[in-house]
Structures are given as structure tokens and as C-alpha cells.
């Protein structure tokens, strides 16, 4: 496997998270010390802007643009939310990151707060990651005792505190406006068309919501420079390293830090050890459940925002789910759609009503009740998902769109054979639960 620079996982240990002392020895908190003494908030934003850092949570929005979206004269208090919710199926990179080096995400969050002059921050964290919630709570106390959190951080006039906020557990809470509702104790549904979090977020105050992997990049950008960060990527348009998760039918599933823009083939074959014995590559989801299936023709593609966008795909969370030749993609799309049906917040009609219809069509095709006209019906229904209030429904449509775009033949086989060609016997576990 080719050697590459380790940045986010440089302090990885086989059996435990890096301690505060270990993080400091590796250069940790140096960026914060320098920032509060020598930098103005807008200098931090400028450096992050020059680095080309884009959000790692799924949407890929340029971080500095989001930060700069909080107007200078905006009211106080301002908030930072470190999104540690990570409920995108197939995605586990943030769990690995927090569990590897908690202080890196803590320092990144404090720096983001400094950049937008925020007073209060929260780690919004899902219940499945309770052990990480406890880890963060413990390490936040250590950071506070060291003077990196609280009133007048390191003797400066910058005061900021950071706490852990536990979620009750729902996928929609990962959406920024829903997350803000969740933190305020409201029913966590998204807010249609904004308001912009930069102006009207938590308690109607300016609020920054960033994924923890995005935030963890910030200390390194400040200490080693924007050019260095850009140079880490393998692509011209990319920047930094990326935590790629690989799971599914590969030999060694895991979370791998590699240069942004590393080719899919390299990630799968070198980092993840190639396909499982007896498995042949068939398709993958490049960035979690709300990205479209990609077939073999993209196997050598560079995993970065722009190369994927160019061929009509999205990097998402960069969490690759690999499917083999024995896996039925109609059934896989059905599983994914089932997930979205269950997790829809139910607020707007396309999502609440449309997704169950897509699910039912896929279920009928998978169980030998498919008809030719279901294919255009599925196309039409997925097309309607763009009318939903938030990105949930369009994301839910993506795997089904990918299925129809590249694997229509497989769908047709189900219909013409009046059964799933991948199933030897007529038994169906999914039926019992439907």
C-alpha cells in the first residue's frame, strides 16, 4: 500500500484514544494558542478559505463560505454545533475519528468558534455513540482544566464553552435545521428553505453547524498552512486528506485516511484488501445511503467532490459500501428505501407519501409481482422527491435512480422471471416484516 501522510489519524493507537498529553506532543493546541494571541477571527476564515476545505458531512459546502456567512455585526450569543450525529448508513468515520483523537475535534471546534466569535458550542451526538459521548465529556473537562475552554481562553478576551448534547436518535437530526430544532427540544423536523443558520439558528441566533471531520482539519490548516493542506490531495480541485470508510463485500473493511482524490480502485484493493474471497465487484455506494449506486465503469474514479460531480454522482460522506455479484441490487435498494421510509420525519408530502410508494413498487418487483410499467412509475416517483422541504427525500431517491440508470436490466429480469434471480428458493424473510 502506498505511504501517505496521516493527519487526522496520526495519533491512532490500536486499543484506545490518544490522551490530551499525546495530542499536545503531536503539536495539538498549538494552532489555538497562536490563534488567540496573534490572529483575528477573519484571518482564520481566510486561511481556511485558502485551504479549499469543504464540508465532510455530505454536502461538501466550502467551510470558509459557511463561516463567512455569519455577518460581522450579527447578534450574540453565537453558537457552534459540532455534528457528531453520523447516522448515514454505511458511515462510521466520525466514530473512528472521535475515538482516535478526541482533542483534535475539540480543538477544531474551538477554532471554528473563534473564527465566528461564538460563545457556546455543542457536540450533537447519536445514542449509538454513547461511549464517545462519555469520552468527549471527560476530555472536555481536561481541555477546560488546561485553559483551552471557558472564560478568557489562554488569557485572551475570547470566551467559549463546549458541551455534549445527546440525541434521542433519529436520522433526520443530521440535517442542520433539524439538528438545531433537536437541540432546542423541539420536534426535530427540518425548516423549509432556511432560515439560514448563519443568521437564525439556535435560539434565533447565528449558528454554525459543521461535521466533526471538517472541524478536525482546521488545527492542521492553521499550523501547516493552506498550501500544504491543498497539496495533500491527489486531485487539482481537492484539498486535504479524507477519512474513507469501506464496508460491504471487501476483505478488510475499515476507515482509512488517504489523500482526497484517491482512486476508488486503490481504496478498495489496497486499503480494504480487495474483494472477499469468492466475491466479484458489482457496484458501490460512494458516500452512504443517500448516494447513487455506481457500476464497474467508475472503478478507477478519483474519490473527490469534483470528479464525482462530473459524472453525475456525489461524494457524500465518502463512506464506500461495496456490493458483489451475488448481491441483488433491487433488494439492496429496497433495504435503503425501507430505511428512508422509517426515518422520514413525515412533515412534507413527497417524502412521507412518496417514499412508501417507491418502497412498495420495489418490494413488488423483488417479490415477483413486478410489472413493466413500474419502471417508469419509479422514475416518476423519484423525480418528485426534489419537491420535498429538505435534502432527505432527494437523497433517498438517489440509490433508486442509480439502480434504474445502471442496472435496469437487473430490474427487468426480476419482472420477466417473476422472481428475484438471486434467490434460490421462494422463501422471503423480508416478507414477514413487511
Amino acid at each position, binding site marked *: 500500500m502506498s505511504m501517505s501522510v496521516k493527519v487526522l489519524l496520526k495519533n491512532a493507537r490500536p486499543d484506545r484514544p490518544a490522551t490530551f498529553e499525546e495530542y499536545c506532543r503531536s503539536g495539538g493546541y498549538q494552532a489555538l494558542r497562536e490563534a488567540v494571541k496573534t490572529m483575528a477571527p477573519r484571518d482564520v476564515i481566510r486561511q481556511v478559505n485558502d485551504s479549499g476545505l469543504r464540508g465532510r458531512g455530505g454536502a461538501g459546502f466550502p467551510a470558509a463560505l459557511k463561516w463567512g456567512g455569519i455577518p460581522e455585526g450579527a447578534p450574540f450569543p453565537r453558537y457552534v454545533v459540532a455534528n457528531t450525529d453520523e447516522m448515514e448508513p454505511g458511515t462510521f468515520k466520525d466514530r473512528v475519528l472521535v475515538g482516535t483523537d478526541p482533542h483534535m475535534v475539540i480543538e477544531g471546534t474551538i477554532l471554528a468558534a473563534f473564527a465566528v466569535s461564538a460563545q457556546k458550542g455543542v457536540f450533537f451526538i447519536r445514542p449509538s455513540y454513547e461511549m464517545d459521548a462519555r469520552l468527549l465529556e471527560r476530555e472536555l473537562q481536561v481541555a477546560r482544566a488546561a485553559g483551552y475552554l471557558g472564560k478568557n481562553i489562554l488569557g485572551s478576551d475570547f470566551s467559549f464553552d463546549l458541551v455534549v448534547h445527546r440525541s434521542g*436518535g433519529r436520522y433526520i437530526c443530521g440535517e442542520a435545521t433539524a439538528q438545531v430544532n433537536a437541540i432546542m*427540544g423541539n420536534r426535530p423536523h427540518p425548516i423549509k428553505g432556511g432560515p439560514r443558520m448563519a443568521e437564525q439558528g439556535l*435560539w434565533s441566533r447565528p449558528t454554525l453547524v459543521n461535521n466533526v471531520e471538517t472541524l478536525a482539519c482546521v488545527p492542521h490548516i492553521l499550523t501547516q498552512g493552506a498550501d500544504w493542506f491543498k497539496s495533500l490531495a491527489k486531485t487539482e480541485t481537492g484539498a486535504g486528506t479524507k477519512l474513507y470508510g469501506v464496508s460491504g463485500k471487501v476483505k478488510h473493511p475499515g476507515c482509512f485516511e488517504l489523500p482526497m482524490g484517491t482512486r476508488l480502485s486503490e481504496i478498495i484493493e489496497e486499503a480494504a484488501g480487495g474483494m472477499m474471497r469468492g466475491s466479484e465487484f458489482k457496484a458501490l455506494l460512494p458516500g452512504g445511503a443517500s448516494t447513487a449506486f455506481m457500476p464497474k465503469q467508475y472503478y478507477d474514479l478519483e474519490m473527490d467532490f469534483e470528479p464525482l460531480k462530473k459524472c453525475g454522482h456525489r461524494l457524500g460522506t465518502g463512506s464506500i459500501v461495496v456490493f458483489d455479484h451475488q448481491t441483488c441490487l433491487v433488494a439492496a435498494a429496497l433495504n435503503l428505501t425501507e*430505511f428512508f421510509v422509517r426515518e422520514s420525519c413525515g412533515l412534507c408530502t413527497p417524502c412521507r407519501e412518496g417514499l412508501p410508494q417507491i418502497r412498495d413498487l420495489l418490494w413488488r418487483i423483488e417479490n415477483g409481482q413486478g410489472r413493466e410499467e413500474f419502471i417508469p412509475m419509479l422514475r416518476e416517483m423519484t423525480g418528485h422527491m426534489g419537491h420535498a422541504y429538505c435534502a432527505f427525500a432527494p437523497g433517498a431517491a438517489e440509490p433508486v435512480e442509480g439502480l434504474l440508470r445502471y442496472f435496469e436490466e437487473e430490474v427487468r429480469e426480476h419482472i420477466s422471471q417473476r422472481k428475484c434471480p438471486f434467490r434460490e428458493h421462494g422463501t422471503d*424473510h423480508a416478507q414477514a416484516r413487511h
Partner: protein
Amino acid sequence: MINDWIAAKGLHRGNQRMMPEGLRRELEAQIKEADHPRECVVDVMYALQKHYGYLSDDAVLEVASLLGMTPLEVDELATFYDFIYREPVGKYVIHACDGVVCWMLGEESVLEYLCRKLGVAVGETTADGLFTVLPTVCIGCCDHAPAVLVNGRFYGSLNPERIDAMMEELRRVPSPLVVDR
């Protein structure tokens, strides 16, 4: 106003009877410290759930009265979240992941094996009150699929032998505990 109505109907009487004063004071202190009481609602629900074993109807009323919310507002959240249990559950809740990766790697047989061994259907609790099996959306353990989450702890790369070992271990442990990192 709704709280007055509840008081008038005597619906709150469970409060005094069931919630220990120590816990009430602890939660009141936590709420008082918050900038906005309502931001504590999930924590308070978790605390009462831990006390009662699940978020009972009485507990919903108590959460509402502690936070100055209506019971409806609390229940709207309680029924929305996956990890707030509005029905009694076992000491150990086995959240079996049915995300796409676990599905691909044998989630259905894990679920089937679990239910068969425990003699329950999905969603049911064993007669000894020890285990409840709930299918759950992707738990973020895809690198060790198929996996389950039990009281905050992951058990991954499951097969029948490992499931047996897991249940053996859980039966031995005196109290349900999340394992700290």
C-alpha cells in the same frame, strides 16, 4: 394550564409516589443551570427512562412538569426518538442493525437466530425480563457487520457462536453498563 388540568384530575399523583426526591432535585438543578430548560428534555427523558426502565405515562407527565412543557409536547418527542422506549423493555435492549451493510452480510439470519434463541418475536421481551430485540437503523458499526448494539455497547462480526457468547456474557454481568473508552 394543561398541568393544572392534570393536577385537578389527580393524574400527577404518580409523581410523588414514584420519582425519588434525590433524582428530582438533581434534574431540577440540571434544568436550572441550562440557558433554556427545554434543551434538557432528551436528557431528562433518558434519566427517567433509566429510573423506570422505560418512559412510562407517569414519566411523561413528570418530564412535562419539570420542563414546563405539555405532556403532548413531551410525547411528540418521546414517540419520535428511537432510543426513548414508551413500552416496557428488558434489562438489555438488543438493537439489531438492519442497515444496508449488515443486511448484505447476514443481518436477517442474526435477527432470526436471536429471536429463536430467546424465544421472542421482534419487539418482544423475554419472560425473564432480560432481553428485548429491536431492529434498528444503521448503528455505525459497518466495519464489523453484522452488528448489534446492546445498552450502548457494540457486538460485531456476529455469527451464531458469537451471539451465544454475547448472551452468555450479558447474563453474567450484574448490571447493564455502557463500556467506557
